[in-house]
């Protein structure tokens, strides 16, 4: 079987071991990964929960009785493959801290206020154009004790199911111009500067809704299927 999904694409990912992110030191495998050919197991992938996603799942400002505190934002973009083709019917899940930089998570001990009107979790299933859209609030930065005076840049976690288990992706979206970028080991675990930039959303005035919310565009790019191999025309 020929490989349908290129492997070189995955060079964009950070290495498992990135010592300045201290938790990687004991959690990164030491033995090399074993390269496996793609079987039906890898080329298929889950389609679950898509039919249960409702409108308020993607509007994090309407999941409670009142409105959450903070700067309301719209985050939208397309799920694409690396050839620029939209990925329809992709389940996009996100989760994030509130405007004060606190997760609703039971183990988050950061002494910033919890917001009774904000959970910070949402879902969307992309349409034919691969587009998704969330309404939420801008998450705050927060300290995380990885090193002295460590603060995570504001970010939103994204979990995406593409068409196969090998296109499964969990990533983070950042905000343009964040002064914390040079100091964040998680962001800088991605060695290629251009690849890092793909995780920074773009402020977009056209997405911005007057008198109501700022807008950001963030495309998520998954591995793409290679085109059917063709004999290239050539001269002898």
């Amino acid at each position, binding site marked *: *079987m020929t490989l349908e999904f290129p492997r070189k*694409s*995955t060079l*964009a*990912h*950070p*290495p*498992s071991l990135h010592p300045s992110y201290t938790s990687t*030191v*004991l*959690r*990164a*495998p*030491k*033995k090399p*990964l*074993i390269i*496996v*050919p793609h*079987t*039906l*197991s890898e*080329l*298929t992938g*889950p*389609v*679950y*929960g898509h039919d*249960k996603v*409702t409108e308020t*799942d993607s509007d994090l400002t309407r999941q409670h009785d009142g409105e959450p505190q903070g700067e309301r934002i719209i985050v939208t973009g397309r799920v*694409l493959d690396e*050839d*620029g*083709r939209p990925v329809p019917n992709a389940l996009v*899940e996100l*989760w994030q801290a509130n405007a004060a930089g606190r997760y*609703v*998570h*039971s*183990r988050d001990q950061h002494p910033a206020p919890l917001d009774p009107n904000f*959970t*910070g*979790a949402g*879902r969307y299933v992309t349409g034919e154009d691969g587009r998704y859209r969330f309404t939420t609030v801008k998450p705050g930065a927060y300290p995380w004790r990885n090193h002295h005076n460590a603060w995570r840049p504001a970010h939103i*976690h994204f979990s995406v199911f593409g068409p196969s*288990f*090998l296109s*499964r*992706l*969990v*990533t983070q979206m950042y905000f343009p111009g964040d002064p914390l970028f040079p100091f964040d080991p*998680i962001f800088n675990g991605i060695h*290629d500067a*251009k*690849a*890092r930039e793909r*995780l920074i959303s773009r402020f977009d005035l056209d997405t911005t809704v007057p008198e109501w919310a700022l807008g950001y565009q963030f*495309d998520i*790019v998954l591995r793409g299927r290679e085109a059917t191999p063709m004999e290239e025309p050539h001269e002898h």
Partner: protein
Amino acid sequence: MSTDRPDGISPSQTVGPFFHYGLTPGSAYPKVPVTVDGQVAAQGTPGERIVVTGRVFDGEGTPVPDAMIEIWQADAEGRYAHPADGRARASNSFMGFGRSDTLADGTYRFETIKPGRTPGLNGGEQAPHLLVAVFGRGMLKHLYTRIYFDGEPSNATDAILNLVPSDRRQTLIARREGSTYRLDIRLQGDGETVFFEI
């Protein structure tokens, strides 16, 4: 073909320690409506009902309490609930996908059915297996592995298992205890699990 071809794929980032309410909320976060968990097969799903469980450990043998395991598997007849598997499917709702976070002692757990043999390379058949993705704090990208089942004669001829050096294959084969299959996942160090690049 679109003209705005991206420069490359979006790089992976860790799920961090606080993914639970977004990805594995269970009953702990009732405002999060859609969930998937370790109950992979509904009652009545055809096949042999099994529990697949184990613990996740780091390089010092310490349990990892903030990992998330996802499994993807075929049904009892070896068919995937996905359009790329074009074989006719009996009318059942088995989706083949499960998610489990790890407990304080590193335990993950799935209740599912044992998968059948699936199509493999060059017209061959694979031994029954689960595809596994491991996520967690301290993991900038998820790791892929597989879980095979002890006592399966087809393990001996499985093309993927045979890519693994024989002295490491046992890290992929779950040990049977009644209807429970047990396999620990060691991210690093002694008995390190075999991870795959796919």
